[in-house]
């Protein structure tokens, strides 16, 4: 565990970058430091690997003061990833990644072997091993930066806005990759960002900082969204925090209806039975149970096999039942022309359909349940899904 105890940092010019900050960073999870630009996130992070020395207070790593061991030994036990990756442009990708193992005295062959293994782990094609950084895209460079930080298998990873300089699509895939790697490796990660969405997407715990280097709130993301400590945190979270909070509720409990679902070869009798289920539209599926589209009951009264597939209303994006969140289910329902969301199983076959009203009811009961039980701990798999 990393314990930050009443740490203050005043720079020589008088700027108080961090003011009496105390924070217990739990092992094996991702703790995000988030806040507006200049609020002292980078300074806090850099005090952990002693790139910056605190003016007062102390930082403990597994119970002992970080100043007790030689500074470079401390740094080698903590991976460090920065915004623009900071790759060594004169070294190949594989040698960039092998840097820390080489510093630790591994022989070159073993260090490179390890580096290649890590390329796979962070989703880089091994064919890039002999390239130089200038031959890689920004997103690829950032992956190399992460691989380089992981190379000597340090228990702690410090990341300072690692994905801020890449475009939103690449950023999402890097975030997903980080969550996947974290699921496998269980590192203690301190992650700095100014982007609250990123913080919510990847953080197990989020420390919101305010200008002047003070801690505004330290809580798991869903608690932050449901009960912001004050107006500053509320403002910082933005206006749609209610919707975003739905990301933390699973779609498991949704009452999926199978009644309005009919196969494309269903006869008039089956259609009549489906119509009796009372839904305003019927969902047609193909022979494998995959969705085809919606049709009004009166248009299919003569049998589903008489309906031209081209005349069906599009079903929009289906959501993965149970694996995606209530936010995804609601999004699907809102986007659907019929106002009903289509749920699919792992094979992509229709598991059922659900109305906006039913989703609304599920949201209300989820909120009620949370108030009784206190904040639920997010399920890791759910988080990874949300990020993809």
């Amino acid at each position, binding site marked *: 565990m990393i314990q930050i105890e009443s740490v203050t940092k005043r720079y020589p010019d008088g700027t108080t970058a961090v003011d009496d900050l105390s924070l217990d960073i739990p092992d094996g999870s991702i703790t995000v430091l988030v806040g507006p630009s200049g609020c002292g996130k980078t300074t806090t992070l*850099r005090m952990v*690997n002693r*790139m910056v020395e605190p003016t007062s207070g102390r930082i403990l790593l597994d119970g002992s003061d970080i100043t007790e061991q030689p*500074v*470079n*030994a*401390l*740094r*080698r036990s903590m*991976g*460090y990833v*920065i*915004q*623009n*990756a*900071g*790759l*060594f*442009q*004169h*070294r*190949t990708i594989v040698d960039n990644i092998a*840097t*820390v193992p080489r*510093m630790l005295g591994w022989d070159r062959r073993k260090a490179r072997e390890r580096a290649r293994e890590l390329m796979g782990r962070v989703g880089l094609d091994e064919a890039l091993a002999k390239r*130089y*950084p*200038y*031959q890689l895209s920004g997103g690829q460079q950032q992956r190399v*930066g992460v691989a*380089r*930080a992981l190379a000597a298998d340090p228990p702690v990873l*410090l990341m300072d806005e690692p994905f801020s300089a890449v475009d939103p699509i690449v950023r999402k895939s890097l975030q997903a990759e980080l969550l996947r790697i974290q699921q496998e490796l269980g590192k203690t990660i301190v992650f700095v960002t100014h982007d609250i969405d990123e913080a919510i997407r990847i953080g197990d715990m989020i420390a919101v900082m305010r200008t002047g280097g003070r801690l505004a709130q330290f809580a798991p993301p869903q608690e932050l969204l449901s009960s912001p400590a004050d107006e500053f945190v509320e403002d910082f979270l933005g206006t749609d925090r209610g919707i975003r909070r739905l990301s933390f509720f699973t779609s498991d409990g949704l009452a999926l209806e199978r009644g309005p679902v009919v196969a494309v070869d269903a006869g008039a009798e089956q259609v009549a039975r489906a119509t009796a289920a009372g839904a305003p539209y019927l969902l047609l599926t193909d022979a494998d149970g995959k969705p085809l589209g919606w049709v009004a009951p009166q248009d299919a009264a003569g049998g589903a096999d008489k309906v031209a597939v081209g005349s069906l209303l599009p079903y929009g994006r289906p959501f993965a039942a149970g694996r995606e969140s209530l936010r995804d289910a609601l999004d699907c329902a809102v986007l659907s022309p019929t106002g009903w969301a289509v749920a699919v199983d792992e094979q992509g076959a229709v598991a059922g359909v659900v109305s906006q009203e039913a989703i609304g009811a599920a949201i209300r009961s989820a909120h009620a349940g949370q108030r009784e039980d206190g904040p639920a701990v997010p399920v890791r798999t759910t988080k990874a899904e949300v990020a993809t």
Partner: protein
Amino acid sequence: MSIFQFISDFFRDSAHWHGQDGIPHRVLEHLGYSFMALGIAAGLALPVGLVTGHTGRGGNALALIATAARALPSYGLLVLMFFWLGIGLTPVMIPLVALAVPPILLTSYEAMRTVDPAPVDAARGMGMGPAAVLFQVELPVALPLILSGLRSAAIQVVSTTAIAATVSLGGLGRFVIDGLYQRNYETVVGGATLIAGLALAMIALFWLVGRVAVSPGVRGGR
């Protein structure tokens, strides 16, 4: 008689190819003086330029020194040193070193100052010591600019080393000085051609050093 005639006569005269006053011996002497001056200048200017560039402090003082050194007339300095120190290598080395120092000093300072700070920060954050950061992170990236400073210095020194002959030393200046004295223009032109050739050889030499010493990752990145 055309200048090309002079040149071809000079190089075809077999008497110019051996002995104390032969082309090979004079070329070696010339290169000897030049590289000695370049070596001394690099020994003085590189550490100062690299350190000031690395720390980012002292840039103004450095620019002042370089400008002052540039303002010194090489030949005037030589004459002064000659009257002060007498015949020898030292009075020749002083103006040549003064000539070579400014380009080396300024480019090495600039090379270090313009190194991207991000990889340096990453290296320190990974636990790399200061010497390793300098030699393994900063220098490899700063090398092309440093080499370009050494190359300008080398070209200037090779061209100016001819002045050694005016104080009775050897080198290719001998052909020029002696030729002028004897009104033998074939020798004057031949000597001047050799000096120009050596200056071009410096360009080729530093190009080659760059190919070998600078990482393709740095060359490709610009």
